[in-house]
C-alpha cells in the first residue's frame, strides 16, 4: 500500500495514457495486418495531380464516420445511450440539400437555388431532427435508443418523400467539390471537412465549459443538478449537435455521389459510429469521453472496412464482423465480466501467496 502511494503519480500517468492506448493498439493491429498483406500499404503517390494510396483512401472514405463519431461521443457521454438515427438524418439532410438545389427536378445541371441556402436548410432540418430526439430523451425520459429508433425508421421514408421517391442528381461541378477536390489541391475535400469539424468541436469544447458539463451530467446526474447544471438542457444540446454533425456528414456523402440517394446515404453508418465510440475507449454507459479516441476509433473502423473490402468481403457482409467486434467490446466493458476477470486474477494471486507460504 505504501509503495503504491509512492508510485501513484506514475500509475496515474499510466492511466491517462491508457485512455488512448487501447484505441491506438487496435488501429496499429489493423494497419499491421494490412502492411503484411499489401507491403505498399503506406505508399502515397500523386496521379493526375491527386493523392493516391490506401491511407488516403481510408481517411477520405472515413471522413463521414469521423464526423458522426464525434456527435455520437457527445451523446453517449451525456445520456449514456446512443443515437441510432444518424444514418437516417444524413439521408434527410442530403435529400433537403439536393432537392433545394435542383429546385424540385430529378436532375439538374445548374443550381436552381444558391448553394448556401440549400446547405443552411439541410442544417436546419438536421437540427430539427436533433430537437425531436433530444425532446424525447431529455424531456420525456425515453431510453435514447427507443427514442431515436423512431427517426431511424421514419427518416429514410421522409427522405424518400422529399425526393419524391427518386434519386435527385446535381450535375454541377461546384457541388462535387465537397466530396471531391478543391481546384488543384491534391488532398480530397472530405478529409478537410472532417478535420474542420474535429477542430471546430474541439475548439467549442476547449473554449466553453461544455465538455466538463457533459461529463458531469453523464457521471452523476443528481450531483450535477446540485452544483447548478441543467442536465435536461445539456442532453438536449448534445442530441442537436449530434444531428447537426450527421447533417454535415450527409452533405459530404451526397456531394461524393452528387446526388441524394435516400436509400443508401449513411446506410449502416450508425453501427460504425457506435463502434468508433466504443473502440475509442469511451464507455457506452456515459461519463468521461475522449474525442481523440473516437476519431482514432473511426479511422480504425474505416481501415477495417477497407481491409475487408480488399479481402473481397461484400458490403452487405461487413456488418457481421462489426457486430462481433461490438459484442466483444461491450462484454469487456460490462461490470460483471470485469468482476469475473478480476476474480480470476485475485484468485490466481491468492493461490500464488498460498503457494509461497
Amino acid at each position, binding site marked *: 500500500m505504501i509503495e503504491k502511494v509512492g508510485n501513484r503519480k506514475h500509475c496515474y500517468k499510466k492511466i491517462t495514457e491508457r485512455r488512448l492506448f487501447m484505441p491506438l493498439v487496435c488501429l496499429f493491429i489493423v494497419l499491421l495486418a494490412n502492411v503484411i498483406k499489401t507491403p505498399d500499404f503506406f505508399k502515397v503517390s500523386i496521379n493526375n495531380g491527386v493523392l493516391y494510396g490506401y491511407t488516403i483512401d481510408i481517411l477520405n472514405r472515413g471522413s463521414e464516420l469521423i464526423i458522426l463519431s464525434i456527435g455520437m461521443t457527445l451523446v453517449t457521454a451525456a445520456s449514456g*445511450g*446512443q443515437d*441510432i438515427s444518424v444514418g437516417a438524418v444524413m439521408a434527410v439532410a442530403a435529400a433537403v440539400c439536393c432537392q433545394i438545389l435542383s429546385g424540385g427536378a430529378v436532375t439538374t445541371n445548374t443550381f436552381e437555388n444558391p448553394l448556401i441556402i440549400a446547405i443552411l436548410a439541410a442544417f436546419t432540418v438536421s437540427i430539427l431532427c436533433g430537437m425531436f430526439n433530444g425532446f*424525447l430523451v431529455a424531456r*420525456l*425520459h*425515453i*431510453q435514447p*435508443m*427507443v*427514442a431515436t*429508433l*423512431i*427517426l*431511424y*425508421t*421514419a427518416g*429514410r*421514408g*421522409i427522405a*424518400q*418523400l422529399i425526393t*419524391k*421517391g427518386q434519386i435527385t442528381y446535381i450535375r454541377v461541378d461546384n457541388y462535387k467539390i465537397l466530396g471531391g477536390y478543391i481546384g488543384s489541391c491534391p488532398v480530397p475535400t472530405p478529409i478537410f471537412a472532417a478535420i474542420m469539424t474535429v477542430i471546430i468541436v474541439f475548439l467549442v469544447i476547449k473554449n466553453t465549459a461544455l465538455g466538463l458539463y457533459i461529463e458531469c451530467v453523464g457521471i452523476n446526474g443528481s450531483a450535477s443538478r446540485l452544483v447548478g447544471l441543467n442536465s435536461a438542457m445539456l442532453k438536449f444540446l448534445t442530441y442537436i449537435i449530434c444531428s447537426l454533425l450527421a447533417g454535415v456528414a450527409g452533405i459530404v456523402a451526397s456531394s461524393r455521389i452528387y446526388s441524394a440517394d435516400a436509400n443508401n446515404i449513411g446506410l*449502416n453508418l450508425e*453501427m460504425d459510429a*457506435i463502434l468508433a465510440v466504443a473502440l475509442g475507449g469511451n464507455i*457506452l*454507459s456515459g461519463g468521461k469521453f475522449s474525442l481523440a479516441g473516437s476519431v482514432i476509433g473511426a479511422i480504425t473502423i474505416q481501415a477495417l472496412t477497407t481491409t475487408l473490402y480488399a479481402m473481397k468481403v*461484400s458490403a*452487405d*457482409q*461487413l*456488418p*457481421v*464482423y*462489426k*457486430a*462481433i467486434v*461490438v*459484442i466483444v467490446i*461491450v*462484454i469487456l466493458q*460490462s*461490470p*460483471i*465480466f470485469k468482476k469475473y476477470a478480476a476474480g480470476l486474477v485475485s484468485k490466481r494471486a491468492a493461490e500464488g501467496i498460498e503457494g509461497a507460504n
Partner: protein
Amino acid sequence: MKNRRLKKGINSSTFLLMITIILFFTMYIAGMIIYSDNGFAKPQMFLNLLISNAGLIVIGCGMTLVMITGGIDISVGSVTALVCMSAAYVMENKGCNIYVAVAISIVLGGVFGIVQGYLIAYLDIQPFIVTLAGMFFGRGMTAVISTDMISIKNELFLKWANCKIYLPFGSVNRKGVYQQAYIYPTVIIALAIVIILSFALKYTKFGRRLYAIGGNQQSALMMGLNIRKTKMQAYILNGFLTGIGGFLFCLNSCAGFVEQAKGMEMDGISAAVIGGTLLSGGVGTVIGTLFGVLIKGTISCLITTQGTLSSWWVRIVLSALLCFFIVLQSVLSSSKKKNSR
C-alpha cells in the same frame, strides 16, 4: 366482478388498449366507407390483413414478451431475413426438404435467442446494444449466404404457401360471382400462438414472472423470483417465436433476399407499443399486440388503396403513431406519479 373493475376506473394500460381498439375500428370503418368500391367492406379484405401479417403477429408476440420484462429486441427483422434466406437456400440450393427448412428456421431463431438472452440476462449488457449487434449480424449473415435473391420453388413449400382454407362465408365480386372467403394455414398458426401465449401469460408462473420482473425487478428479486433465468427464458422464447414468425413470413413472400423484412423490428415494437405494452415494462398483452399489427396492416392497406401516396408513408405514419403512443405513455405515467404524491 366486471362491474367492480369498471367502477374502479379504467387504469392506464387498459386505457391505451381501448384507444388502440377504437382506433382500429375507426380506421377500418373509415376505410370501408371511403373505399367501399375497392372491396374494403368485404370480409376477405379483413382476412387479407391477417394473411399478409401472420409473420408479424408471431414476431410481435415475441417482442411483447421481452418488452414486458422491460427489454427490447431490435434484431427480429434481420433474423426474419436470415430465416427466409436460410430456408430458401437449403431448399433451393441444397435440395433439402421443407421439414429441414422448418427445423433450421426455428433453430436459428432459438440460437439468436439463447446468445442474446445470455448476454442480456447474465452479463447485464443493455438489451439495445446486444440486439443492435444481433440486427447487423443477422443482416450480414444473410448476405454471406447469398447476396442474390433466392425464390423458392419447392413444390411442397408452394403447396403449403397456397393452401387456401375456405370459410363458410364470402362475398360477391364486381362481376357478380360469389367468392368464398379463405385464409392460409399461416393465419391459423399465428392466431393459435396468440391464443396460447395470451393464456400462458395469464395462467402460468412463467407468464406472471415476466410481469413481476417488468413491474419492479428489485421487488421480484426480493420475492424470491429468479430474474436472470426468467429473462433468459423470455429471450429464448422470443427467439423461437421470431424463427417461427420468420418462416411464416417466408411462406408469404416465397423468397429470400438481403433486404427482406427491413424495418420489421420497428413494426414489431410499434405493434406492441400501440397495443398497450409499456416501454418501461410490466404491462402488455398479446391480444393488444394483435390489434397493433392489425392497425399497421390497415394503415398500409389504406395507403396502397389510396394509390397516389408512396409506400414510404406507411413507415412514416406508423412511426408517428408510435411516437404518439410513446408520448401518451410518458404523459400518463408522469400524471400517475403526480397523483400518488
